[in-house]
């Protein structure tokens, strides 16, 4: 499931598909961020990730460039660090999430960043998201991790960084757009990435569009 780039119907149009994984401690809001990004919804009483572990969302960077994310949520397997290697395999980008009101969740995030740097693609793009910013907007004393501290760590580790709220949607789109801009659209035909959609077997009941997103209405 590596990235795919193809030229669309219009001359100069580009379409690329990337695999994105989410990591972070339980309950920091990984699934909520995905739900906000994909469906523009938020649910206060979401219990768990059930039924939402594989989603896709497309964003247009400009008139000619469309990026499609194939999003893998962790389905709760992160609890005992028992993620299957297939989860990281070929991931082009990762969002590592912590909860800005829970100090320990940043430590967990740091250990996931390490794990990614060890296990995943060498060129993986990692973004750090300090989630639940809405909680400190109302009660500043709830903040457990300062923006400056997290920013410093992100810079040092070479990560993109945003403070987000899945609840209010603050910075959610910005986060995914920043990742899309950093992805190597230009050399997506290089090693480890596929220039053309695979010719192989397609067993998927509804294969996700790989030919210009199927967006051609002509």
């Amino acid at each position, binding site marked *: 499931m590596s990235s795919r780039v193809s030229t669309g119907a219009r001359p100069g149009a580009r379409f690329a598909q990337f695999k994105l994984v989410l990591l972070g401690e339980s309950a920091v809001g990984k699934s909520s961020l995905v*739900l906000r990004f994909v469906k523009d919804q938020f649910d206060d009483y979401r219990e768990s990730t059930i039924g*939402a*572990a594989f989603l896709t969302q497309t964003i247009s960077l400009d008139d000619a460039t469309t990026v499609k994310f194939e999003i893998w949520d962790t389905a709760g*397997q992160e609890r*005992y660090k028992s993620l*299957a290697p*297939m989860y990281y395999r070929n991931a082009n980008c990762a969002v590592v999430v912590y909860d800005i009101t829970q100090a320990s969740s940043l430590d967990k995030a740091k250990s996931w960043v390490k794990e990614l740097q060890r296990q995943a693609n060498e060129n993986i793009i990692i973004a750090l998201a300090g989630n639940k910013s809405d909680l400190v907007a109302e009660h500043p004393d709830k903040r457990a991790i300062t923006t400056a501290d997290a920013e410093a760590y992100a810079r040092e580790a070479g990560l993109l960084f945003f403070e987000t709220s899945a609840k209010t949607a603050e910075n959610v789109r910005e986060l995914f757009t920043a990742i899309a801009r950093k992805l190597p659209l230009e050399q997506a035909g290089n090693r480890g990435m596929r220039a053309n959609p695979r010719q192989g*077997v397609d067993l998927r009941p509804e294969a996700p569009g790989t030919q210009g997103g199927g967006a051609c209405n002509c």
Partner: protein
Amino acid sequence: MEELAPEYDVVLLGTGLTECILSGIMSVEEKKVLHIDRNDHYGGESASLNIEALFKKYPDSYSKGEEPWMKYGRGNDWNVDLVPKLLMANGDLTKTLIKTKVTDYVEFEPIAGSYVQKGSGATATVAKVPSKPTEALLSPLMGLFEKRRAKRFFEWVRDFKDEDPSTYGGLDLNQCTMKEVYDKFGLEATTRDFIGHAMALYQTDAYINQKGAAKETVDRIQLYGNSVNQYPGKSPYIYPLYGLGELPQSFARLSAVRGGTYMLNTNIDEIEYEGGKVSGIKATMRVRSEDSEGTMFSTKTKKIIADPTYFNDANKGNVKVKQVAKLLKAICILTHPVANTNNSDSAQIIIPQSQVGRKNDIYIAIVSSVHHVCPQGYYIAIVSTIAEGKDNWHLELQPGFDRLGKIEEKFMKEPIPLYEPLEDGRNDNIFISKSYDATSHFETTTEDVRDIYRRAEGKEMVVPDLRLDANLVGQE
């Protein structure tokens, strides 16, 4: 321990494919599932290894202090299977993958060719397995008159329908033997060999004289033919990108998505019983890359489903399995396609037992970089059979090695014992799977899955159809 439930409907031990399919399906059925593996990786015996791990699994293959894997490029470009198996394109496992939408997590490539060997030694012929009446007429495996007889046989198989007696051609398949069928069409011994072994995929000749086995044989030949039709010009087999190890992982993911809990690196310390039936487990989860003691926990369970290695420790007095055969296997790394396979990037070659004076067939499964299991320019060939002697195993596999030409690296050990459970599990509610057998595909694995389900749940397993499941968010 955090979030662990006090009781589960089922605890599964070992994350091989059999257990992972069951845990995926049972999780979809909203059973409370805890799935444990003593290893730090998924897949058990059905895992795929990188090149360094492969060398280390076969310590006799290199001298101490050497690092022979260094010359094989990036270690993680290698995903070498431990069990040599392929999927039938139209088989039960493929259908299960599609119905449960596990195909979201794993991609497949066809295996290019399916071949069979006629004769032995220097005069052996390796040729494509003909699967259609028209192909039979072109096959170098048969002489002119035999081609025509085989064509008539294939036409009869193709048209055979259980519900339509006019297609029986005067044969009562539920009563007669396959020998009677072959006799009726006047087929020669070598033709029977490739039909029975390379198409019906029997490993021995026991099926020929078994009364009533003709129907199953015809079913198997039809499955072969239907699988070939899936990807015309290719073999009836498909294979997952990145190796077979992807299969258990993707069913594990289905389970986790549906609420199943996964714990790797976890040892079972004790199985608890009440009134002769299993009631719970005590276990220790080790902390990765640390020498600390790990975390002990216990939980109750109504049932255990386990691979045979979890109930085979004579020291603990918990032996619930018996050895039924020994699998001989050699993993070979090549830098060229295999001769007589039309330079295919992948193939299966079957050497029927009688062609080389054996009782069990020899299988060769070949995959390469198109399947993302090795860097470009390499081929992985696994030669396997059921061991027939007490030693000289190398000689038993030799007809297979003869097909491969120059071999860069050969990984081989003493034969691997294959286990089956002693009991069906209904007495103690511990249901044990079979080891991955010597067949070249997964049809017997899904048979075992269905059998375990029947024993454990008291009814037939129905593979849930999740293709139209409205609960799945975001599938455009």
